[in-house]
């Protein structure tokens, strides 16, 4: 009998979107102080579906660990903040369909000693990889390069710094971050051409409001496969530097 969030948002006239502001290319501030990034564009897609205007959004910037509390305490309508889908989290919030599949990639210096993943693997234990500090960091690297030595650093800028200064031969981190960094610094780096460790990113809404979840799902789905594909593809091109093939026409790709 409760009114759906959908009606509430429509009535209000704008969407309250939870996201961060300090992680390129997902959510960060442009030089003229506009929130931008791939997560932000997902929110804009939802707003456009709601009001026909992608700018009708009120942003709530939040730290990573505020993502779930802000949903459950109703401070945001929806959160799009590179949120990795896990079963544990799905018990607390309702995830939408994924809008990106992340993997770990390897970045090399363009003029470095190693040409690609194969060369790295061959070099065995003489390779050093810099990664973000994490409990799983070592295992994660060894899944791809079993003999490489691993240097862990505390923040993203430092792993790049390590590669730049020759303290490491490769950087292993989210492919999206790598892609962004490479677009920002053209011709200096090279993708080693190997990805692993997949995880899905979804938006999330409060549990128990199927109408609202359906709506957001529909908006995202049609952006990836239907009328708003160009919006999604432009965004993808902007933040990841890759052109997407338009969805195949005819039998829906989902059921193949």
């Amino acid at each position, binding site marked *: 009998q409760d009114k759906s969030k959908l009606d509430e948002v429509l009535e209000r006239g704008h969407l309250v979107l939870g996201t961060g502001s*300090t992680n390129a290319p997902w959510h*960060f501030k442009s030089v003229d*102080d506009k929130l931008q990034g791939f997560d932000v564009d997902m929110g804009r897609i939802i707003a456009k579906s709601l009001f026909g205007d992608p700018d009708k959004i009120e942003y*709530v*910037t939040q*730290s990573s660990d505020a993502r779930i509390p802000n949903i459950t305490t109703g401070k945001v309508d929806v959160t799009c903040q590179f949120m990795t889908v896990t079963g544990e989290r799905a018990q607390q919030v309702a995830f939408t369909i994924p809008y990106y599949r992340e993997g770990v990639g390897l970045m090399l210096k363009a003029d470095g000693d190693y040409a690609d993943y194969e060369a790295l693997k061959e070099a065995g234990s003489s390779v050093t990889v810099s990664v973000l500090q994490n409990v799983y960091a070592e295992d994660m690297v060894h899944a791809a390069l079993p003999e490489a030595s691993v240097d862990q650093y505390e*923040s993203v800028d430092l792993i790049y710094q390590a590669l730049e200064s020759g303290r490491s031969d490769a950087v292993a981190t989210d492919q999206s971050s790598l892609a962004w960094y490479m677009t920002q610094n053209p011709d200096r780096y090279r993708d080693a051409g190997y990805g692993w460790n997949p995880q899905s990113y979804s938006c999330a809404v409060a549990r128990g409001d199927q109408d609202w979840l359906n709506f957001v799902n529909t908006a995202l789905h049609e952006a990836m496969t239907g009328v708003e594909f160009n919006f999604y593809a432009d965004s993808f091109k902007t933040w990841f530097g890759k052109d997407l093939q338009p969805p195949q026409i005819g039998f829906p790709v989902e059921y193949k």
Partner: protein
Amino acid sequence: MNEFLAFLDQVWLARFVILRGLGLTVSISLLAIALGSVLGVLVGLALTYGNRPLRFVVRAYTDFIRGTPVLVLVLASFYILSTIGIELNAFQAGVFALAVFCSSHVGEIVRGALQAIPPGQTEAAKAIGLTFSQTFTSVLWPQALRQMLPTWVNTAAEMVKASTLLSVIGVAELLLRTQEIISRNFMSLEFYFLAGLLYFAINYAIERFGKYVERKVSVPS
């Protein structure tokens, strides 16, 4: 050298953002200090002149607040207040938390200052026929104010420092602004340094101002 020029270039690009962050930091601090001081004076009065039950309640309040880290106060007022039906946005919740924190300190300062005034002052005022409220406003409070000024200025500086904690709940004050800029250009060393410099400037200004006022109102002897 080149790097430094690049840094200056980034600062120039981000100048409005930094200024806006600075402005927000200053307004958060001012609001929190103002609200916290008003509340703190009430707390101090209750602690000094309140009857037993009131004193007990207020004492429990200050002890609890003073025993809790400010960050926890900030997080708690952002999340807890909304679940009990008080809808505050991040800015309001943050200012509320800082004001509450400030009030517990100012409360203690006020109590200390009032209790440090010799009882003879009250008696002399009574003896010429002043009522309590006249005694308070003409005799006790002006003396207490002078006495507490230095500690109060310290507290104000503490509030400026504590305003950084609002970055955690997404209030775009100076520190969060700095982090945003760093995430764009990866110049963490330079920009944290810049932020430090700005905070230092604010607090140093407060300190100087405090000294100035102190000199101004000091009673000749």
